């Protein structure tokens, strides 16, 4: 039972992070539009897409994760959305730094 809750918490953490990333990316997209920066706008749009994909992937993965943990099988491995979300956050940070330094 406790293991099932662990899997549940992990799925919720994915949803939370995906949602937060997409919201920040949307705000960055708006900022890029206001400053008419095509490059940063495109990067933000890609990040929105990655975050949405992470939410969908996390939901699809949930049942498998529950099953693994309850049979105390091996961890299903970090999905590609893990490093992808980390890269997305890095892109948002770099895009913001470019906006604040270059204008």
């Amino acid at each position, binding site marked *: 039972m406790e293991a099932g809750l662990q899997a549940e918490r*992990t799925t919720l953490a994915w949803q939370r992070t995906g949602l937060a990333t997409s919201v920040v990316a949307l705000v960055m997209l708006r900022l890029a539009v206001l400053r008419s920066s095509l490059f940063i706008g495109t990067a933000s749009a890609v990040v929105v897409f990655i975050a949405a994909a992470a939410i969908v992937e996390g939901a699809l993965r949930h049942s498998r994760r529950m099953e693994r*943990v309850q049979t105390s*099988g091996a961890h299903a*491995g970090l999905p590609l959305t893990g490093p992808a979300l*980390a890269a997305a*956050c890095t892109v*948002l940070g770099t895009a913001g730094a470019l906006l604040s330094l270059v204008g």
Partner: protein
Amino acid sequence: MEGWRVSMALPSHLHPAGLAATRSSGGCRGPHPLLWPDECDGCGAMTRRPRRVYDQGQETDPRFSLANERTLLAWLRSSLALVVAGIALLTLAELTQVDWLPESAAAVAFAGGAATAILAYRQWVRVELALRLSRPLPSNLGSLVFLGSILVLTFIGALAVLTSST
């Protein structure tokens, strides 16, 4: 899973060698929806990525790995918090007369956010390896960078208050 059945029809030289070997030993699931090969049930060979993590050591209690996964996500949210702070400072910069102070603070926040995200993934790899090799957990450079960014932001904030009062 459908995708896998289709690719089984390909000539054998088109298969990634490791993948073909694992799949043929039976009891395996299809490739991951996002093309990130998943673990196989019941057949010894693992195709989980990143290989440099899953090729080493022994299986851990899945609850520890799940906790490590959640820690990565929590760090990514912390990194996003710094990015949001940067966005707020950029917006603030348009409202004030002093132009360089909020903009440089925003640059610090954004750079801190980007670095925190990179270090979060690095730390996930290091912790997962430590778990699999039964080694002590490594210290986290990311927390130092995160703390450093907040300290610098606080310093710039204090500077802004002091210069605006004179």
